[in-house]
């Protein structure tokens, strides 16, 4: 439990507990929109992925994209939810230009999933965060203010892109838990292939409901809702800031007002958008254009059977099956793309531990350096496996492997061909090696003397000289052996 101690002067005042619930919007990765055949592609020219349906033209009617239901079911089952096998769409009525019909098709009365949970590993052990419900809905368009003409324009490309909203119970008590919960959702949705869940691009959006109460109080305090949180950092800061703001109000004997607040990332503070008194009456009612959805037992069973292995199970398997450390297994499974590459590399013949080392080591180092991410990796698993094989068979040495990998990372060259082409194979000619070692030993009598006295440190220097002479193409263990042999002679 995250508690804080408020101090006024030297007097310890009260201890407060933060209570947090989240509403997370996840943009589904369907090819077409939820109620029409328009594409969902991001970044197209304004109003090019539109039709009478997603622009609210008179007489148009919504047609449900079944894939959306399938994705919502996948998400719900992965989050341990109950399924409403008879579920309906409702209309949420409000006027705003980004919403072409002036109602959003959503679910209020019978959402597709309810009563699920997520398990988090906390210092105090496993903690369950309840999922109140998951419902399906359509996204709105985008308003763009045109400074030049001082008017607003609207782009309906995003109008009708499918979303699910995952509503948690108020079970979280700290920013840490919130971040962990969100990371869990993110990874789960990615593994399910349901969404790419990028906060920055808006394919995952989290609204934070937060209240504080005195530790031990049986009732919740008045909550506020915070919007416009575009990164984990913003979420953590917003939670800290809001918690302090509410405690300060209470300490001053003032009340927290139930309101919606907007987080400003630049100012690192939030301001009130609207209070409960201004809350709109959305006049929800069942959408008469869309018949209720009947979800059969067979459909649920087939989705359940086809659910992919999720992060936690995968990490456990990597440890037991491949003998990876928990640390490496967690890193590999932390990103679906990385885990997939890992598994393909093994399939291509690489030893699991070697593959894991390359992916958690050089790969992540280069990704970080280039500010990229695993899903954007261009080299193939086959090439990585082939590189590992070249190293294992001592065709190349470690340093050469790293150099080749760096090239491969950029342009996905075939490492075997590249090594051949650039003459990077280690010299297997023992005559040449002996000759070179002799030459270096002759040139460094002082070092040879030290080595004879048992100062082993100097071997590194000698080896470096040999490698340099042989342009890095020597097998280090052979070099070391040869030095020892010749020194003793």
């Amino acid at each position, binding site marked *: 439990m995250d508690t804080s101690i408020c101090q006024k002067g030297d007097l310890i005042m009260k201890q407060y507990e933060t209570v947090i619930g989240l509403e997370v919007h996840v943009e589904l990765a369907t090819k077409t929109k939820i109620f029409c055949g328009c594409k969902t592609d991001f970044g197209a020219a304004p109003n090019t992925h539109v039709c*009478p349906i997603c*622009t*609210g*033209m*008179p*007489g*148009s*009617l*919504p*047609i*449900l994209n079944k894939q959306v239901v399938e994705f919502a079911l996948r998400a719900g089952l992965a989050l341990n939810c109950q399924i409403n096998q008879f579920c309906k769409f409702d*209309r949420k*009525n409000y*006027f705003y*230009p980004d919403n*072409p*019909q*002036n*109602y959003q098709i959503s679910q209020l009365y019978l959402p597709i999933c309810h009563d699920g949970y997520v398990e988090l590993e906390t210092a105090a052990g496993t903690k369950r965060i309840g999922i109140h419900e998951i419902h399906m809905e359509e996204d709105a368009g985008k308003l763009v203010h045109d400074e030049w003409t001082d008017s*607003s324009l*609207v782009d309906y490309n995003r109008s009708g892109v499918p979303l699910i909203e995952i509503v948690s119970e108020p079970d979280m008590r700290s920013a840490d838990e919130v971040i962990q919960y969100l990371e869990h959702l993110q990874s789960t949705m990615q593994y399910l292939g349901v969404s790419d869940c990028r906060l920055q691009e808006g394919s995952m959006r989290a609204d934070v409901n937060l209240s504080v109460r005195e530790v031990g109080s049986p009732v919740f305090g008045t909550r506020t809702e915070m919007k416009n949180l575009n990164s984990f950092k913003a979420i953590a800061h917003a939670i800290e800031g809001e918690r302090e703001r509410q405690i300060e109000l209470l300490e001053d004997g003032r009340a927290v007002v139930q309101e919606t607040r907007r987080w400003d990332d630049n100012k690192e503070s939030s301001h009130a958008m609207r209070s409960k008194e201004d809350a709109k*009456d959305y*006049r*929800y*009612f069942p959408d*008469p*254009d*869309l*018949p209720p959805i009947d979800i059969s037992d067979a459909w649920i069973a087939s989705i359940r059977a086809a659910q992919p292995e999720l992060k936690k199970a995968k990490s456990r398997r990597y440890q037991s099956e491949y003998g990876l450390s928990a640390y490496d297994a967690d890193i590999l499974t932390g990103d679906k793309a990385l885990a997939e590459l890992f598994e393909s590399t093994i399939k291509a013949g690489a030893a699991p531990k070697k593959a894991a080392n390359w992916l958690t080591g050089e790969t992540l180092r280069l990704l970080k350096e280039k500010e990229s991410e695993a899903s954007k990796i261009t080299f193939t698993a086959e090439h990585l496996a082939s590189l590992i094989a070249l190293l294992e068979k001592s065709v190349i040495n470690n340093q050469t492997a790293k150099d080749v990998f760096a090239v491969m990372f950029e342009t996905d060259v075939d490492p075997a061909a590249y090594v051949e082409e650039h003459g990077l194979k280690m010299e297997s000619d023992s005559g040449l090696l002996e000759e070179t070692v002799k030459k270096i030993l002759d040139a460094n009598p002082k070092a040879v003397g030290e080595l004879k006295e048992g100062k082993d440190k100097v071997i590194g220097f000698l080896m470096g000289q040999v490698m340099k002479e042989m342009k890095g193409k020597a097998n280090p263990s052979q070099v070391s052996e040869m030095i020892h042999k010749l020194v003793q002679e």
Partner: protein
Amino acid sequence: MKILELSATELAKKIKAGEITSEEAVKASLAQIAKEDQKIRAYLTVDEEKVLARAKEVDDGIRSGKYTGPLAGVPIAVKDNICTKDMRTTCASKILENFVPFYDATAVTRITDAGMVILGKTNMDEFAMGSTTETSAFAVTKNPWDTEHVPGGSSGGSCAAVAAGECFAALGSDTGGSIRQPSSYCGVTGIKPTYGTVSRFGLVAYASSLDQIGPIGKNAADCAALLEIITSHDEKDSTSMERKDTDFTSAIGKDIRGMKIGIPKEYLSDGLDDDVRAAVEQCAAYLKECGAEVEYFDLGLMEYTIPAYYVIAAAEASSNLERFDGVKYGYRAKEYEGLHDMYKRSRSEGFGPEVKRRIMLGSFVLSSGYYDAYYLKALKVRALIKKAFDEAFAKYDIILGPAAPTAAPTIGTSLSDPMKMYLSDIYTVAVNLAGLPGLTVPCSINEKGLPIGVQLLGDCFREKTLFTAASAIENVRGGWTLPFARKETLS
């Protein structure tokens, strides 16, 4: 031979036989429109040039074998809440005055593919809200039988156009009687099909769970042929159904001996005019003459029908009409300060009083704190009404009743008392709540010379039974001459 007096099916046969061309039929219709429509005001849009070009194309298509359907070449009118590509679709509202869709409603695609020629778009109550066609923002349509009287509504323009010989058939839409009631007032035949039979794609929604497009014609056979054309299982409408047994024309002229007809006692008690009661009794007599069994029974729930209908229809309308906001298309106020004011002014200036009344009513019944008391309760009543009909149709093949409590009222007498106008929908709205098919067939003419139709209700998917009974009534009733044909005969 007077082309205009032919029924749609007769005309199509002659076109097919090469006796008449579609172009001739279209020219005759256009001439009639030119002659009569200044007075009747059935149409909001007629583009002669386009229509004539289309007629020529259709004639070519018929010759080349592209158009072979039973109504190929027939000129048809389309209600102005059904989207027509490149042709203004206004819903008789200022807010859509200059709206030109870039897509066809599925029903329009169907009639076009069948080689029919769309003459133009017909007047209606604004957004189909009204029972007289007087709430149109552009014109008041007159009843061709007596221009002092309304044609009924909301498909008043379509029904008047058929009655005035300004087209051979028409498409209307029916949310609470908007095909059946004006069909009765105008002495034409019209059917609201089972919910889900005709795609709603391209029909500008009033109340989505109640709206259906349906045919209006000179007789049952024409309506059956047209319904056969527009029936479709459309992937663009999730509420459209895959139906079997849609060869509606095969039902015309079949024997009705042994058919069981029930007349709800409540339908003939207080609140309807004697001439209407007489028409229903007359019709019952016709059916008996053909060998059907007619009896009276208690349907029940009559007093809950109107409130349930107006709560549900208004609730859906309040949401459906939100998209008309001045942002994307349609009317935008000339002057405004900021977004909120733009919405407010555009909608205040763009919508007429009846539409505003229903938007307010609908917004109220959906608002938090009232939803359960009004909207949910109305849904429960709706389920009970469906159940009552289910029980009735376990005993009867057809329920017979009035289409409206009166013949067509005089212009200017209805809108001043909206409550009374709403109550006059008593015989038609239950059908929409229960999703059933309902057909109006002309039965008699009252002392004032106004036509009165009766309504035949069937169980879901039983349109064929209705067509059989309607054609039986036509046979016994004898020839039915529409007002334009009378005048022509007289002059």
